[in-house]
């Protein structure tokens, strides 16, 4: 059973997908259909908000990397609002903090 909830905020210029809970393999299975649906709209700015994520494993990493890869491919912008330190550590361990665009606050950024 997954311990994840997520919320979607789709506005004209951005889509924010915010997670809350443990982003593990079960969570990924649950989230992926929604992620696919949101990506269909080709949001100019896609924000993955991890601030409320309490745990992240390689499945979560994989999901975010795949989303990022698709965004690059489609020349969309994907930003990640980093989670708490332990969660962000997982990115740092794999040096993904250098590969993904992390922003502390996504509200001020645009699609350009």
């Amino acid at each position, binding site marked *: 059973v997954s311990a994840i909830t997520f919320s979607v905020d789709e506005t004209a210029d951005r889509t924010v997908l915010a997670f809350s809970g443990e982003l593990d*393999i079960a969570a990924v299975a649950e989230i992926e259909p929604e992620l696919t649906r949101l990506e269909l709209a080709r949001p100019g700015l896609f924000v993955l908000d991890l601030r409320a994520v309490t745990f992240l494993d390689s499945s979560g990493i*994989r999901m975010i990397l*795949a989303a990022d890869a698709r965004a690059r*491919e489609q020349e969309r912008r994907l930003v990640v609002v980093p989670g708490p330190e332990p969660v962000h*550590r997982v990115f740092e*361990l794999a*040096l*993904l903090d250098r590969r993904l665009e992390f922003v502390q606050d996504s509200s001020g950024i645009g699609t350009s």
Partner: protein
Amino acid sequence: MKLGRREKVAEWVAPARARLSVPAVVAAVSGPGVITALAPITDLEGKQGVTALYLAAIIAATTIGGLWSGVLAAGLSLLGLDYFFVSPFHGFTVDNKEPLITGGIAFLLAVLFVHRVQQRREAAQLRAEQAEVEMGRRASRQEALASFGRIALTGASAEELYDEVVRLVGEGLRVGMVGLAEFAPGSDDLVLRAGVGWREGTIGSRVSAERDSLAGYTLALNEPVVVQDLRQDDRFPGSPILHAHGGAGAISVPIRSPERSIGVITAISSQANAFSADDVIFMRAAANMFAAAVQRHRFADELRVARDEFQALIDASPVPIVVYDRDGVVTVWNPAAEEVFGWTAEEVIGSFFPIVPDDLREEFDRIREDVYEGRAFSGYETTRLRKDGSKVEVSFSNAPVRDAVGEIRGVVGIITDVTDRKRAERAIIESEQRLRLALEAASMGWWEWDVGTGVVRWSDNLEPIHGLPHGGFKGTFDAFLELIHPDDRQLLEDAVGRALAEGSGYDLEFRVVWPDGSVHWMQGIGHVVVDEEGKPVRMLGLGRDVTDRKRREEALAFLAEAGERLSGTLDYERTLREIARLAVPRLADCCVVDILDEERSPHQLAVAHVDPRLEELVRDLETRYPTDPNLPASPMGRALRSGQAELVERLSGAELRSYARDEEHAALLGELGLTTAMFVPLTARGRTLGVVGFLAGKGRHYSPDDLALARDLARNAALSVDNARLYSQRSRVARSLQRSLLPPELPAIPGIDVAARYRAAGEGMEVGGDFYDLFETDGGGWAVVIGDVCGKGADAAAVTGLARHTIRTAAFREERPSHVLQTLNDAMLRQYAQGTFCTVAFARLADTVRGRHAVLSSGGHPLPLLLTAGGEAHAVGSHGTLLGVFPDPELEDTEVPLSEGDVLLLYTDGLVEYYDQDVDVGERRLLELLRESAGKSAEAVAGRIETSLRETGNGNARDDIAFVVLKVSRAD
């Protein structure tokens, strides 16, 4: 009028007496006197000539003067004759008396004859005259009566009638005084209502109604009373007014209507003996006519009042009232009709009844004809039209209108606009229907229990809820209690008793037993109605069959429980036995599970029966008559063959016998007392794995709902069986695959002590993504690898295989660990689509001039930990980018010198995550653990870590765990 002899004489005498007057005497004397005087002078020779003259004179005298005048003339004539014939000049000497006597007699006879003739003539003339007068009087009286009648009929006022009658009587009787005394309304006193000839102020005075007054006497006698002379009559001291007016003759006649006495009319003459029998008759006639006129007048008044009241009623009626005739022509149309139907009276009266819709014209005609045949209608409901064309629902009452002779002249209709009522009724009916439908849909019925009388009323649908035929409920509380399941009776009785005591209610679920023995669940809601003193009077309630819901609840609970048991274990055989146990008695009296083995022949896996003795019997039956799927009659065999569920709602004895293979089998089957059965195959991925049989008796009959439940259960069970079988197959596969991905056994490295552990997350059904490897490289060096491929299963296994072999290959070619990882990165990018990555820590162990050391690189992997011989522990190396995603990963090499006793730990993130979700915390924990393990062998360190995992004990790890421990045993 017949006259007596005396009267005849009197009649003869009376006029003569009256007429011996001077002219009669002159006539008697002058005739004979003139003849006697003239005889000497004239030459009268013959006696006969003179005698004739005398005779003529006598006749003349008699004619003129009457009898006595004739007699006188005859006497004188005799004297004259004597003078002439006996001794004309010798004095009155009669010589010859004989001729004288003869002449005298002759003269007298002549007189008498003439007189008689004359008298007769006169009498006839008199009678004629009298008759004429009488006729005239009668005619005038008739005329007067007739004119009175006319006046009475032409609507004269009451006052006019009174004045007219007294005037009539006064004139008719030719009297100057007439009075009419009448009973004052509502009193026994008479009042002089009208009169003529009375002194002023007399009219209106009271008149005694006692017998001492003339009026009272007349009334008492109830006959006309004729008084000859009031002045000499002392019978009526009570009539002072009469006496005061000095009347003499009086006639008094009672005035009566058929039903009552109105009063008295009295005529008074100033002369005594004034009234004849005719007068009496006239008075009577006048009185009767007056009475009739008064009566009519009264009726007319009453009629007018009644008609006025009636009209007022009709006008004031809030309800339309109409009258129409046989042709449907309206004669009465009241304001309410105007209001309701819109047509005014002016528009409607005289025209055809306008409110009948065309399509109801026949009905209207029929009803009108019926009314004309004397029938009346009441509360007839139909539709009528308004002027604006809209329809009005009406209820009308019709009755015939009859005239004086009972002939029907019209139809009166009183019409009530019941549109609102109808609407309300419809609403009520609809709401009742809705309620009934709702109640029926909810299998809900109502009842009402009169606590005092014990009588219970209930809705029709309550009987079927109890399995009773229509009218099958006896209608008492005790009879109701009898329907309750014995185990629940007390519960219900207590609840009802409590509700009655507290004036409250209850809501509980209980079982009822139908006449066929089947058990059903009811929800009963009761509500006590109390009187002013708080005493229970009635109890109202709803009853509802909740068997389905209850069964569903039970079924769901059962399914949930069964599902939990089935999913919680891989020991499906035990689980199926438990499920068979669970199914009894909830779903069945007996549950059997047969499973097909590898050869697809069934064997009984589980049997459960509510009755342990019968459970043995079932086992015994299976032993003696094993299930044969090829037996055509057996529903169990059919279910196995076809994979379709079999439902035998009603299992008859004959059907049961048809399953039996011999008499004994039949007898044993019969002993089970089954009445229903269902057999549901256990089917997964299109394969029938077995069959579950549910069997029940005691009048129970499985429904399709039960079958659905059984199917759900069988689906879960089949899935469980299938999973368990798959699991055992897959875990076998996975284990062997995993083994193939890990080094079969760790190589012995000179001077290095090695231990490794691999622990798959979960039940090990899938190949994990973690791997490690340890191998010798070119030039006597050794490489140790630990990695974590994202994902699990076959895909992960493939990546793991690729990674392992790529690293092994690259390690021969490439010196630097970072280059090895770069090679892997490139290979993965080539090989796999986006999103497949791995993290790898690679270390090359080598001896150089500087001593033994390790060069390591991490591609996104947790850094290896180093425990120094001195007991220091820390992570070594630097972080690198994970592999397989980016073409330009940042990878660095770090050289770590190794001394004897140093311990290097390479691990996957599953290990630290196991300690804590925060990998930093997990890492600190692991470092602590290492420090505690200082001085221990590699195997001992690995064991210590394993132990800690057990101690941490947070259940199944969500990720695989792998780690490799290297201990430098000698640093040469």
